[in-house]
């Protein structure tokens, strides 16, 4: 049956060429949207590695030039600022940081061990950071005063970095190269700096100790607030901390607001893509419906002959739909082969195997579904004509 239909499809290849081109293009569009959506959905369900609610961020503009070491006066001011922040009412913990989640900027560089090198995002943070941000240590320990005496500075890595850099070996205690030697003391969950919609990336925490030799001033102070603290408290925080460092400027905001901004940025292309893709599909659907309608009408005589020879209405309807599905399958061969080159040549970047397969499956489903939907109505019309009428058809 299928082979017979294939012959039928092949004999009309010229008139179906354009329809096939359209289906192929449509398939690619659906694939792009589906891959993007699946990628985002997978990321959304992954653990974030920190808790953003009840965290406030104080931006510190120290106006200290980045190329010089911090002076004794600046260090004293920083220490005093951190102490004053921890002592504020409704603040449960406070820590300095050089990068916080949901920021647009990031720090990255290579971490190497045993001849292997991994591009790593880095956050330089104070000892209380894990408590403030709710970072879960899964092995080893977080930074503490015991690191003060360490000759090799400590490093805490996330699961992804541990896996990428060390494979099966135990990362704890290993000394890696990252702007000098650093010893891995702990592993945390998959900390994702860019938030819910981002893919997990290798991440490492360096310890920020406010003491002589500090080369970079912290850019933020993160505060863990008592749940239920209102926004009006922001001004209290500024009023209490401002006088501690009169020559610097401070700015406070809840991390939830940074998260909103970040998510809005990340969601915009997704929503836009889905809306445009949806309308494109609707348009293609209407177009296919029109073309198939006309195609089937032109074949009324042929279909009438089948009816006259004893085929039931259902059989004729099935023939029309299956032929259409065959055309669609042929049409999708070329784009499918093209798409399969992506994983073969590792052009995917951050797109994972499961997402890729899922997106292919989803696009196949959508295109076939669209074809069945658009083919059923014309097929029904074609079978409604009586065989005797159909044979006389001009």
């Amino acid at each position, binding site marked *: 049956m299928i082979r017979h239909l294939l012959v039928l499809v092949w004999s009309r290849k010229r008139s179906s060429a354009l329809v096939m081109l359209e289906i192929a293009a449509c398939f690619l569009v659906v694939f792009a949207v589906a891959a993007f959506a699946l990628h985002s959905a997978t990321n959304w369900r992954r653990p974030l590695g920190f808790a953003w609610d009840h965290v406030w961020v104080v931006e510190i503009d120290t106006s200290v030039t980045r190329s010089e070491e911090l002076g004794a006066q600046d260090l004293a001011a920083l220490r005093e600022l951190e102490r004053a922040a921890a002592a504020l009412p409704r603040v449960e913990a406070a820590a300095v940081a050089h990068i916080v989640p949901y920021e647009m900027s990031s720090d990255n560089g290579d971490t190497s061990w045993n001849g292997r090198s991994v591009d790593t995002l880095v956050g330089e943070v104070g000892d209380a950071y894990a408590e403030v941000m709710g970072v879960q240590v899964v092995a080893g320990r977080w930074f503490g005063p015991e690191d003060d005496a360490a000759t090799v500075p400590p490093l805490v890595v996330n699961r992804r970095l541990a896996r990428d850099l060390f494979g099966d070996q135990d990362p704890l205690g290993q000394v890696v190269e990252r702007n000098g030697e650093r010893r891995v003391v702990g592993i945390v969950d998959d900390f994702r700096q860019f938030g819910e919609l981002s893919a997990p990336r290798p991440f490492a925490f360096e310890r920020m100790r406010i003491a002589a030799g500090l080369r970079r001033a912290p850019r933020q102070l993160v505060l863990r607030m008592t749940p239920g603290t209102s926004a009006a408290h922001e001004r209290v925080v500024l009023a209490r901390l401002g006088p501690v460092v009169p020559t610097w400027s401070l700015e406070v905001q809840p991390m939830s607001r940074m998260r909103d901004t970040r998510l809005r940025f990340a969601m915009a292309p997704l929503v836009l893509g889905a809306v445009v893709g949806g309308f494109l599909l609707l348009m293609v659907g209407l*177009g296919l419906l029109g*073309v198939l309608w006309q*195609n089937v009408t032109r074949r009324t005589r042929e279909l009438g002959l089948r009816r006259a020879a004893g085929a039931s209405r259902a059989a004729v309807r099935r023939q029309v739909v299956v032929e259409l599905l065959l055309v669609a399958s042929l049409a999708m061969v070329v784009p499918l082969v093209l798409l399969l080159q992506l994983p073969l040549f590792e052009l995917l970047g951050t797109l994972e195997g499961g997402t890729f397969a899922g997106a292919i499956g989803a696009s196949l489903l959508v295109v076939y579904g669209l074809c069945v939907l658009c083919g059923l109505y014309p097929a029904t019309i074609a079978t409604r004509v009586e065989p005797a009428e159909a044979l006389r058809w001009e």
Partner: protein
Amino acid sequence: MFASYLELAWKVLWRRKFFTFASLFGVSFTLLVLTLGAVLLDHVFAAHPPESRLERTLGLYGLAMVGEEGMRTGWAGWAFLDRYARDLPGAERVSFIQLQRGVAAYAGERQARAMLKRTDGAFWQILDFELLEGEPFTEEDQRQARPVAVINESTRKRLFGDVAAVGRSIEVDGQRFRVVGVVRDVPVLRFFPYADIWVPISTTRSDSYKSEYVADFVALIEAPPEAHEALRAEMDHRIATAVPPDPQLFQNYQGGLDTPFEFFSRMTFGRHHDRARPGVLAAVLTALALLFMALPAINLVNLNVSRILERSSEIGVRRAFGASRATLVGQLLVENLVLSAIGGAAGLLLTVVVLRAVELSGAIPYAQLGLNVRVFLWSALFTVVFGLLSGLYPAWRMARLQPVDALRGSS
């Protein structure tokens, strides 16, 4: 002749309402997306107030320090601009602008989040802000470090309600400023002039910005268009010969004078900020537009082919009675253009509605996404290209139909 074509086209369109609807939907939706794209590009890159004299301005927008080990990408620092961009021969005015950052602003009990930008007196002369009240601050204010501020309309509303603000004071960043002027809101996508509050650079509490070479400043340079080539060459020469302050880490600078469009393409395609390559960006945008148009075009061609095949007996009669191929092709193209025109009009209407919705939703702060003449002409061009593109193939197919075959109703 043409009138009868039009009449015929109109009748044909009404005869198959489904086909007409499907085609119109495709045309208007595609135009909607393309026009929205054009409006957005126009909004970001074309000359609009306050950047109305865009053809007279160049900017040193980005700057990178490059070394063997790595690079630091960002914006120029004050020290760099002061040394290399201050006295460019041929420049009429030079303004230094610090990039805006978020602050909390207070006026009495009222509080508002605002973007604060520090700049100088020349800024207000190079750019064309619409003043609602008072005057902008001057070069003298900048020299004397007077605590004066210009605020925009929305900030005035948030901090003072609907009353005049000039002469009143606001507290930003722990400093008090006297409001000297109120200007019309600047759209957020006009990145370099955009802010809610503008104050003199010299009011910064610490002087450390004066020693930075790569930091958060940009320079705007005004000069007659014919002097731009010499200016760019001079700046390129200065950047090529300048040596960064810490030669062990970084040995060279990269950057140059750009228009905003050139800067955008430099950010996107210049791998190390070395060249602007605006042609590449234009080509990519055009390719994207064409790619996006491909699916609707194929769709429309398909619909048109079907419609013609359905009318093959009519065409057969006309051919048998002596109508030339050219006549028939012409007729079909006219039909298509009529369809595209109607679709175009519907698309434009839709665009206006969507733009208004985007403006009201506040998704892009202070955006004024009007459909101006330039964008309208773009849409008209899209429509014509679309009509021709989607009509050519079916017209060619139709002209090949043999009268005998056409009369019999087969192809």
